């Protein structure tokens, strides 16, 4: 069925279809319509949505609900991400499946509240203490707001980790023609919560290999469940033993980083003989696609890599795309954040950052001109 929807509408639909039945949030432009959409939608599916006193309570309630077995969602923008920061660390520490939508707006601080940017890209990855990994996905269209929200829930369950959908105003509040039925048909069935067997002792953070992910047992279910923000062992008992702590740190890191290829989603459009790679994500990927079409129409050559997974960095895809090119152009609606990640993999190739943070889209002309593509 063809509809004319905003990205935020598609997030709501995607979350419901993923089995999300708990939402807590606080109003903030440009994410508010996810909150209001959830308030309307949740009663219809027997779920629950609540507006909280602040963003700290929003993510806190989601973590509590998630540990009772619910798939939980919260949504905010940059200032709210700042308030989520500490609890994102808690969700990592407690291995809580959770999906967070960050409909970014131009910042810092209050910034231009009704205008877009991708200014939180590194903040989403590095914005909590401890530096342990989580997953960040970036949609470029209304359709991808649906499919990547579905994917975000699947990854959150698969890895018991917070997954952030890096949307922004130019995607979340842009209405476009979309067929969500077709998008739904193209999605794999949503991953159910892996639940620990009721007739066996429950070890909340059990692993044999460091990258194993234990099933959960819901608070209120057959087992007594322990959960803690403090450094703990596999049974969630506090520990100060450096050897145990090292093991747990390795577990929290490797359950994500060892599976970077599994988590990586991207589109690769190579151009034979091209010496320049255009690497883009989010709404700017649309400008990059347009720029590539214009360059090729003009007889030029350029390869295109569009990332849907930003973190863990899809190193395999980026390295493969780098083979054979001498330089990379990275357009972004910030001052050059993801270009830093690309430089780490570029092996001395020129990495040209095309940036814009004046609330306007990076245009295809910007990409071509400042990227030196023609």
């Amino acid at each position, binding site marked *: 069925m063809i509809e004319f929807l905003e990205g935020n509408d598609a997030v709501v639909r995607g979350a419901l279809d993923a089995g999300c039945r708990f939402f807590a949030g606080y109003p903030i432009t440009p994410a508010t319509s996810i909150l209001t959409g959830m308030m309307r939608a949740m009663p219809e599916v027997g779920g629950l949505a609540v507006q909280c006193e602040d963003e700290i309570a929003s993510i*806190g309630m989601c973590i509590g609900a998630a540990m009772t077995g619910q798939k939980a969602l919260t949504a905010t923008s940059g200032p709210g991400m700042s308030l989520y920061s500490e609890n994102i660390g808690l969700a990592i520490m407690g291995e809580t499946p959770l999906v967070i939508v960050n409909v970014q707006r131009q910042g810092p601080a209050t910034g231009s509240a009704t205008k877009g940017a991708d200014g939180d890209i590194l903040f989403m990855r590095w914005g909590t203490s401890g530096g342990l990994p989580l997953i960040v996905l970036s949609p470029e269209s209304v359709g991808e707001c649906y499919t990547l929200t579905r994917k975000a829930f699947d990854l959150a369950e698969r890895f018991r980790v917070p997954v952030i959908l890096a949307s922004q105003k130019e995607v979340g509040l842009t209405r476009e023609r979309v067929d969500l039925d077709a998008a739904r048909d193209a999605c794999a069935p949503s991953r159910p919560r892996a639940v620990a067997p009721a007739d066996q002792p429950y070890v909340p953070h059990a692993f044999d290999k460091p990258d194993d992910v234990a099933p959960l047992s819901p608070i209120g279910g057959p087992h007594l469940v322990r959960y803690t923000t403090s450094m703990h062992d596999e049974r969630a008992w506090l520990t100060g033993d450096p050897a145990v702590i090292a093991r747990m740190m390795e577990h929290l890191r490797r359950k994500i980083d060892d599976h970077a290829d599994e988590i990586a989603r991207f589109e690769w459009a190579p151009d034979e003989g091209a010496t320049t790679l255009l690497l883009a994500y989010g709404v700017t990927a649309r400008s990059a696609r347009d720029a590539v079409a214009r360059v090729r129409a003009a007889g030029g050559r350029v390869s295109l890599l569009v990332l849907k997974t930003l973190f863990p960095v899809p190193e395999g895809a980026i390295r493969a795309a780098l083979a054979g090119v001498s330089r990379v152009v990275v357009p972004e609606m910030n001052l050059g954040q993801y270009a830093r990640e690309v430089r780490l993999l570029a092996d001395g190739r020129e990495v040209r950052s095309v940036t814009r943070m004046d609330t306007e889209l990076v245009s295809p002309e910007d990409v071509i001109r400042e990227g030196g593509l023609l």
Partner: protein
Amino acid sequence: MTPLSKSDAGAGPGPLSYLDEASLPLPFCPGCGHAKVTRAIDEALVILGRPRERVVVVTDIGCVGLTDRHFDTNAFHGLHGRSITYASGIKLADPGLTVLVVMGDGGAGIGGAHLLAAARRNIGICVVVANNFNYGMTGGQHSCTTPPGGVTATCHLGNLEAPLDLMGTLRPSKPGFLARTSVFADDVPALIARGLATDGFSVVDIWDLCVAYYAGQNTLTRNTIGDLMTDLDMPAGVHFEGARPEFARAWRDLYHPAETADDEGMCLLPLDAGLAPVAESALKKRTGILIAGAAGQKIRSLATILGAGAIMSGLHATQKDDYPITVLTGHSAAEVLISPEPIVYTGIEIPDVVLILSEEGRARVARKLAVLPPESRVYVEAGLGPVETPARVIPLGLKGAAQSVGRLAIGAVGVGTILAAEGIYPLEAFEAAARRLQKQKVADTNIAGLRAGAALAR
């Protein structure tokens, strides 16, 4: 979502103790009141008799936050001051659980907003505050409940801040149960049990001694703690009992239809009818339309119908809105991009068509008007006077044409003019979109306006 289960209603005889004997002794300093608080909680749980699996002890940071690991129940140890938020999420998701929060005066201070919100909601959790007037875990700094003149590591000449009266602060919210006592009183287990049994939000404020830091420096003892209550006019006793509906149940009662099945499957929402094509368009190229009007002219919904009509003509469309934070004043503008091809880049660098409906709208797009190429068309309400732009300006009596339809119809008149004059897509597609997406009365007005505008263009 967990339904309310029958097994939650009646409680048989429960365990003789909810403490994990293997975890004892408790880790508190000799003489610290937190051990008594922990024992009192255990006694209260025994009085209540819930199955261990249906009890959750939620704590946060501070010495008393060490209690949860000594309970043989579900245990959740979270961030400083945020225990009420986790407990609320747990209770909302599974209202049949007995959810107990144990926090200190530090947690009550940093999490004050959560205390207030939980009391206003009347969410069914019981908060025990082990209130010992300072931050013991970090070395005895002053807290939100340190008495005036109290000496701590951060007010060594005496505290200048007034102490927070938890009972007095929360009472106006009319939660389920509020009580204050001291750790030396006999009623502590009974009061906690009453809090736990309350079908609503409850707080038991237990005044307590920090023997490591606060008590010694301030000569606070078992014998003087009652005098402190008198001096501060914060007496012991039950301070409030309310009967407002508990939030987690009340929310379900109000919002959930009687027969809601949670099938965890596909979306059950009644979806809009789709925008399948009803007409064909001869549009050959991507066309950017900028509508610039004023608040109240229904620009955003009109732009949505304009885009939906394009889709119902087999075209592609995007829409972006531009309006100030205060939505009932100032400009309201929308960009609608219509194309026979899928739209990749959603920006409109140079609008092909501009529709100006008000002075506010004109001012908003003045910068863009100034740089339009001569081939762009600017349709403007004639009453607004001359427009400074290199583009072709087409003044029209939009306001006059709208008068016969309704005050709010000027936008629809303008869109009718554009669709007819530019031949973007047939009027019938716009009409079908309005009928599909808008309430009948609104659709009627927009369609009448559209037709008046089309007549104007001819």
